């Protein structure tokens, strides 16, 4: 059968009606110099040949045998129920329908997601999700500017450098200036944002202070003091968090965060190049009308039965046009559903166990490397499941280990030259003792 609804005869009639000789004639206005093509496309292949070609390409993937890479994305055990739930065709194939209230199941799943994120963060309202942690962070910055009517944002250098670049891009359009707040990078220093330097960067035109916790160096930040500094300058405090850490750490709502943004990938979404991941954002109810994106609310119908609706849509672009809170209303519904299924499957005790085991393995990893004389802590202070370790000649040895199928974390020199001798190593509950032993043995051989 053909999937094309129009026959040649249909096309000829339509062209005739508008007085154009051929379909190509529709594009005559486009100068040939800017047209794409001609295409150099290989001849068609039969299915068997396509499979062989794809297998050949896939064979070029280098899948590490052992990985300590984190840097914003973390491998965790994903219970099978997560893929079972998100593979259901009702969820997997459906786009948010126009007249979304027809899809009560989809809306209920998003409402439950929002409720879980509120519980995790200690905040009052969460969005239906965003593309990823970087865009959620950038949206939080824009939201802070709308709420305070200020035009600068201060950001800790401890924020993931990729997030920092996305933030810069988002801010460039509306003309918002991004001000950096340094992190103490001294040998054996805190590796955190000093509240005094934050206070220096803040001023009566700064909408918010953005701080990651744990920061990109794995360090826990003095969030309460930093929140106080932001508030003292009349600005808002944006906490960028790692969701599994919230099973152990104080919820951002408790230390004065006005906005929370996060990458939700650790909650049941597999590590993959380019995603899809899922951005989380939560806020206080008083600022709900400035939140970007979709929000699902619970209500009752005329018969008193519980139901779910898209609510406060007047913030959104299809109603408010250019004055909408954001020009992106896309949410990552399927990945948000994965997070919902994951959190439901592991429960609060399971989540805490995941966080504790990850932390324990990171300590085991650090201890083993330090005991072997291969590394030392680059900073003081506290870390959770990711740690910055000084390893002499880090870049060369990182590359040498990669040849042996081991990803020895992220070489921090790639984003901060002062840390050229430092590797950022992550551990989670899937990191085995044998993985750690292998890293120690192989790193020894690269001396």
């Amino acid at each position, binding site marked *: 059968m053909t999937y094309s609804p129009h026959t040649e005869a249909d096309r000829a009639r339509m062209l005739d009606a508008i007085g154009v000789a051929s379909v190509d004639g529709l594009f005559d206005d486009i100068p040939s110099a800017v047209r794409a093509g001609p295409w150099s496309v290989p001849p068609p292949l039969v299915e068997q040949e396509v499979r062989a070609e794809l297998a050949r390409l896939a064979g070029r993937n280098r899948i590490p045998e052992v990985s300590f890479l984190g840097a914003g994305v973390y491998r965790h055990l994903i219970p099978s129920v997560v893929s079972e739930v998100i593979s259901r065709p009702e969820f997997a194939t459906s786009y948010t329908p126009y007249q979304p209230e027809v899809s009560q199941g989809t809306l209920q799943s998003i409402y439950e997601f929002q409720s879980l994120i509120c519980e995790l963060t200690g905040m009052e309202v969460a969005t239906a999700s965003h593309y990823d942690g970087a865009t959620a962070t950038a949206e939080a910055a824009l939201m802070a500017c709308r709420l305070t009517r200020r035009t600068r944002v201060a950001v800790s250098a401890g924020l993931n450098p990729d997030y920092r670049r996305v933030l810069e891009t988002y801010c460039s359009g509306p003309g918002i200036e991004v001000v950096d707040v340094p992190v103490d990078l001294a040998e054996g220093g805190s590796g955190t944002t000093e509240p005094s330097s934050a206070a220096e960067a803040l001023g009566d035109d700064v909408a918010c202070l953005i701080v990651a916790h744990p920061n990109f160096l794995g360090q826990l930040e003095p969030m309460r003091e930093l929140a106080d500094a932001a508030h003292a300058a009349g600005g808002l405090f944006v906490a960028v968090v790692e969701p599994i850490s919230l099973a152990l750490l104080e919820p951002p709502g408790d230390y004065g965060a006005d906005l929370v943004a996060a990458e939700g990938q650790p909650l049941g979404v597999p590590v993959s190049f380019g995603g899809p991941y899922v951005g989380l954002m939560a806020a206080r109810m008083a600022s709900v*009308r400035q939140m970007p994106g979709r929000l699902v609310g619970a209500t009752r119908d005329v018969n008193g039965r519980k139901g779910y609706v898209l609510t406060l849509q*007047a*913030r959104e672009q299809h*109603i408010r046009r250019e004055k909408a809170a954001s020009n992106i209303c896309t949410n990552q519904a399927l990945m948000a559903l994965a997070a919902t299924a994951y959190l439901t499957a592991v429960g609060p005790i399971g989540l805490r166990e995941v966080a504790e085991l990850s932390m324990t393995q990171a300590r085991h990893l650090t201890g083993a490397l330090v005991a072997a004389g291969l590394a030392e802590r680059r900073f003081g202070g506290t870390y959770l499941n990711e740690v910055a370790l000084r390893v002499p000649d880090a870049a060369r040895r990182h590359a040498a280990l990669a040849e042996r199928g081991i990803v020895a974390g992220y070489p921090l020199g790639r984003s901060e030259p002062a840390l050229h001798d430092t590797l950022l190593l992550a551990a989670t509950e899937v990191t085995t003792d044998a993985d750690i032993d292998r890293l120690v043995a192989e790193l020894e051989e690269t001396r």
Partner: protein
Amino acid sequence: MSYPDDLRYSKEHEWVRLEDDRATIGITSFAADELGDIVFVELPEVGATLSQFGTFGVVESVKAVSDLYAPVSGEVVEVNEALGDSPELLNSDPFGKGWIALVTLSDAAELDALLDAAAYADETA
């Protein structure tokens, strides 16, 4: 439709009631009817300076969101806090209990750029 004779009107559907140098501002019954059930009003802050025909707040109804445009320039001395809990006053009594803000008028000549009741009625006919 007819409109109160003692007010001046903008083409953006706001009204002004002048008492000495103080001007009360609201939206017209025409605007309220067009918007439908109003569910939220974002009020200006007391002390804010409004400029004629500039935006100073937002009204949100079940079907639309609209900016409020100041019919005159001036400083906000009072806002109608009752609209926080009862935004529907804009629908039920737009020229009375549904007033939005009280401002000190900075330039009485600006009133010349506004319409009288008859002209506004023509405008919305």
